[in-house]
């Protein structure tokens, strides 16, 4: 097996190694590139958007996350479980479970209990001092009023998240069943 005879074999092996490294390099480049492209634009994968679409958007924080979108991101990344949304109730828990392919579990009462027809906030206008603290706290702009003027809550826009109760200095906000006004008429 003369060295000369072996040279072409050696050459082919070298060429093969070179070829494989080039191909592997290309592969690495595209895998990393695609990965970066996905996360670079703070891009919420469609899974997060689909999860967010299922949530009731009360932004109440009962699921220990800042709002519905953060909770959806937590579920997508597997940090949160699918039964932490009391306002959504059994239907949302089942939909989240089905979407994540897990066995749907009933809502965990530890995160709070919400009545079937959610209550809405109500301001006792005689006690309101117009400090606008609740307006800043309301995530969905359901409170009308200006500083030093009396505030009131638009019952139809209130999602029952109870975030306006703690900041109120005179504690004049309480939760009440929604008024029986015919919803269809007023839209």
């Amino acid at each position, binding site marked *: 097996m003369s060295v000369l005879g072996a040279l072409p074999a050696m050459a082919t092996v070298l060429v093969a190694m070179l070829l494989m490294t080039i*191909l592997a390099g290309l592969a690495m480049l595209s895998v990393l590139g695609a*990965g970066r492209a996905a996360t670079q634009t703070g891009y919420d994968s469609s899974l997060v958007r689909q999860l967010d679409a299922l949530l009731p958007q009360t932004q109440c924080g009962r699921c220990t996350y800042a709002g519905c979108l953060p909770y959806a991101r937590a579920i997508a990344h597997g940090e949160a479980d699918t039964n932490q949304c009391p306002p959504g109730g059994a239907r949302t828990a089942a939909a989240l479970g089905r979407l994540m392919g897990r066995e749907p579990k009933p809502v965990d009462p530890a995160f709070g209990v919400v009545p079937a027809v959610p209550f809405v906030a109500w301001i006792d206008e005689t006690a309101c001092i117009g400090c606008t603290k609740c307006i800043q706290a309301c995530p969905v702009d359901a409170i009308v009023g200006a500083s030093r003027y009396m505030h009131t809550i638009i019952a139809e826009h209130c999602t029952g998240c109870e975030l306006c109760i703690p900041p109120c200095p005179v504690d004049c906000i309480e939760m009440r069943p929604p008024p029986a006004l015919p919803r269809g008429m007023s839209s």
Partner: protein
Amino acid sequence: MSAVLLILLSSMLINIVAMNGAPRWRPFTAMNDEFAAARTLAIAHLIALPPLVLGSWLLFTRLLQPLSMTYLRTPAFVALVLTIVPLVETILRRHGRLVPERPGFVLLMITNASLLGAALLASNRLHAPIAVLGFSLAAAFALGFLLLAFTALRARLRHADVPAIFRDAPLSLLTAGIMALAFMGFTGFIQE
């Protein structure tokens, strides 16, 4: 021809088990509308398969065979897949509506046996580039149709009051079995 069908079916069977077998992430059912995921995957296959099969065929016949290094066929194929699939994903992502799911899509595309099967078959059997292209397009189209049909099928099976022992996986395998029966009708189409 029957060999191709058997390969497709085996990939379909392997896929099915993969689809509802792996517990932690289930790439397929991670979409609330399974149909959208199946459509995304079908179109991804349609885009990925032709360049992949053509590339691996050219690589094999023009490069590895003259240098008699055919043992490098599979690693070359793996490298090719790792190059093409992420590119396909970026193409799909720009499309917006067909956005693939991060964990599920890439892994499924790379580990999809039918891509490897199609590539190996092409390099063994076919000799003209046109035949290779035609074959890869046909394989991608058949796989896409099967994916969509099967997803719609499972959506309907989900609501039927199937006996408890047959629920989910066994019924999918039984359905795949009867489907294989149906495909046996095509045996002998093209004399090998």
